């Protein structure tokens, strides 16, 4: 898709996340259209009019050029004059992108660019709930997925109002679900989000539920659960199963001899189906290995945990 970008674009609004994202998407598009594109970025407050004149003057060698001016509201008077003069007859080989906070400051520039026919990219802070809902739906659509208004609202109530986090959540959901995002998916992802812990991960891993364990692991890490207790919980999960494996009797009968509370004994007994002694040995070794990895032995602790979760789940019979 090599549509020529508009020669003049104005990113208008005071939301830093939206503004920064519009700038980087303009840069990405320019690079995609022409890997050798000449891309120059300036802070409007630092740029003197002479330098601007030089930046927009035709290149000797031709080729596309992208000029990004951040914080346009800080531009000095003579810079605005030069900019607006240029805007009247823009060079077709140069694409000018100006980010502007949209307030009263430097209004002459935003008004002038608008009058000159610049394409307006809105980046104002979102304050209304309806706009936020629209943002989420647009976001998911942009990533190739779809979701209803209700679903978008559910996501917002789970994640909060921060656009950056919402955007990250949208991209995670689209990646993990393939794009069909329903209210059930959102609820499953965010149910008791704060309570997602190492134990959730371990419980899923020891019953061989790989997708469930990996999902819980990712969320636990995403909400900032420390990898060390996750690794400990994984070992605890395997240990509990190993201790009850082959035992019969109620939780109460076994609790004291195993040194575990009755509910834990009973849960572990349910989880113990499908485990062989050899599988438990393998799983315990995986748990010990990741215990070292999360304490600084491994470069990527999240990856080490994923591998351990997989190893534990696969050690269970029939999970290969």
């Amino acid at each position, binding site marked *: 898709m090599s549509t020529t970008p508009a020669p003049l674009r104005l990113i208008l609004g005071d939301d830093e996340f939206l503004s920064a994202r519009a700038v980087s998407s303009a840069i990405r598009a320019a690079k995609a259209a022409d890997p050798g594109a000449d891309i120059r970025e300036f802070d409007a407050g630092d740029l003197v009019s002479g330098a601007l004149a030089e930046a927009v003057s035709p290149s000797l060698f031709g080729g596309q050029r992208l000029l990004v001016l951040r914080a346009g509201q800080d531009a000095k008077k003579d810079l605005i004059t030069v900019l607006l003069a240029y805007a009247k007859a823009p060079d077709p080989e140069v694409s000018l992108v100006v980010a502007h906070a949209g307030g009263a400051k430097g209004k002459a520039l935003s008004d002038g660019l608008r009058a000159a026919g610049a394409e307006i990219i809105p980046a104002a802070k979102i304050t209304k709930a309806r706009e936020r809902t629209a943002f989420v739906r647009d976001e998911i659509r942009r990533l190739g997925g779809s979701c209803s208004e209700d679903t978008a609202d559910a996501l917002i109530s789970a994640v909060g109002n921060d656009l950056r986090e919402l955007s990250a959540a949208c991209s995670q959901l689209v990646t993990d679900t393939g794009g069909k995002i329903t209210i059930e998916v959102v609820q499953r992802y965010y149910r008791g989000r704060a309570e997602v812990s190492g134990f959730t991960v371990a419980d899923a891993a020891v019953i061989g539920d790989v997708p469930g364990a990996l999902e819980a692991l990712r969320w636990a890490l995403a909400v900032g659960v420390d990898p060390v207790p996750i690794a400990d919980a994984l070992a605890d999960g395997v240990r509990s199963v*190993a201790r009850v494996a*082959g*035992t019969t009797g109620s939780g109460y009968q076994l609790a004291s001899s195993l040194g575990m509370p009755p509910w834990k004994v009973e849960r572990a007994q349910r989880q113990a189906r499908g485990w062989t*002694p050899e599988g438990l040995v393998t799983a*315990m070794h995986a748990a010990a290995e990741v*215990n*070292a990895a999360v*304490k600084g032995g491994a470069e990527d602790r999240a990856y080490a945990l994923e591998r351990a979760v997989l190893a534990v789940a696969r050690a269970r019979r029939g999970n290969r």
Partner: protein
Amino acid sequence: MTVFDELAGQRAAVEVLQKAAGAAAAIVRGDQVPAGAMTHAWLFTGPPGSGRSMAARAFAAALQCVNGGCGTCAACHTTLGGTHADVRFVVPDGLSIAVSEMRALVLRAASSPTQGRWQVLLVEDADRLTEAAGNALLKAIEEPPPRTVFLLCTPSTHPEDVSVTIRSRCRVVSLTTPSAAAIAGVLVARDGASEADAAWAAAAAQGHVGRARKLARDPASRDRRQAVLGIPRKLTSISAAFDAAAMLISSAEEEAAASVSEVSAKEKAELETALGAGGTGKGAAAAARGTAGILKDLERKQKSRATRAQRDALDRALMDLAGLYRDVLAFTLKSGTAPVHADVAEMTRAAAAKWTPESALRRLEAVLACREAIDANVKPKIAVEAMMLSLWQG
């Protein structure tokens, strides 16, 4: 008799130290000595149990004693007992030595000796110095006051144990793993153990002098060793493997508690007395406010010492276990080497009749891997459980 008698099988090192002590005495008398005859900084290296700190202490005593380390005078006694006014010990309680502690000690070591001979700063486990603490020490070593001697102990001169710069300033005394015969000799001569007990303890301790001494005279540590050696027979199921792991961990905890609780309680009582806890009158309230913080510091220090004691105890147990599988391996290979645990040779021989050399080796490796894992900070309980499962699986 000399203070060096306790050093089992370290003749070469003792010779060097006695010579230097002689030169040091000459300096104290005001005689000229050849350059390098006495050195201000010493590094004692050797495997655990070879007696690094014992050698350093003996050398300190030889420096303070007018008879070059007779082992009987007050200077010798107080130095060896840790109460000599001019010998300061840095014994790391925790897993590392803090810079604040080191600065204070270095400062005191720079003062002139009260008894007219030498100021000695002895750092046991200098490999546990933090980088900052090492730098504080290095500064002092680089410009030593005329009558100050630094004695550092580390397992080796490897840069992981001691910084290259510190190493370059020190004269190295390397101790070797003493033979069982040398250890037994010391147990008989110094501790009055019977020949048979001494020989048994020396073999069981695998070259570790302190451990041999403990086995020879402490029944509780003999019992703990028996329990450890009984482990292989108990590994009959997964569940039993977890039980054995729990037993090993709790026994290490008990041993550690026994070794530190007494001194910890004493320390706390002393500190409380020094701080005037329970005092009344002017300033008592103000003192109480600061007191809480100081007590908390002490508690933190004691906790970290307890952790370290647990690790040490667990490591000894793992070494006993490793020795056991080594014996089985040696029997399966019919190598004819003397067993580490001669007293349970019947059991190890029986195991050797059932196992292949490969499976004995796998078990030995599982024990060594467990030690490494604990070194790499794996939770001891988890590492030991994984090991027990391997031992069960074979």
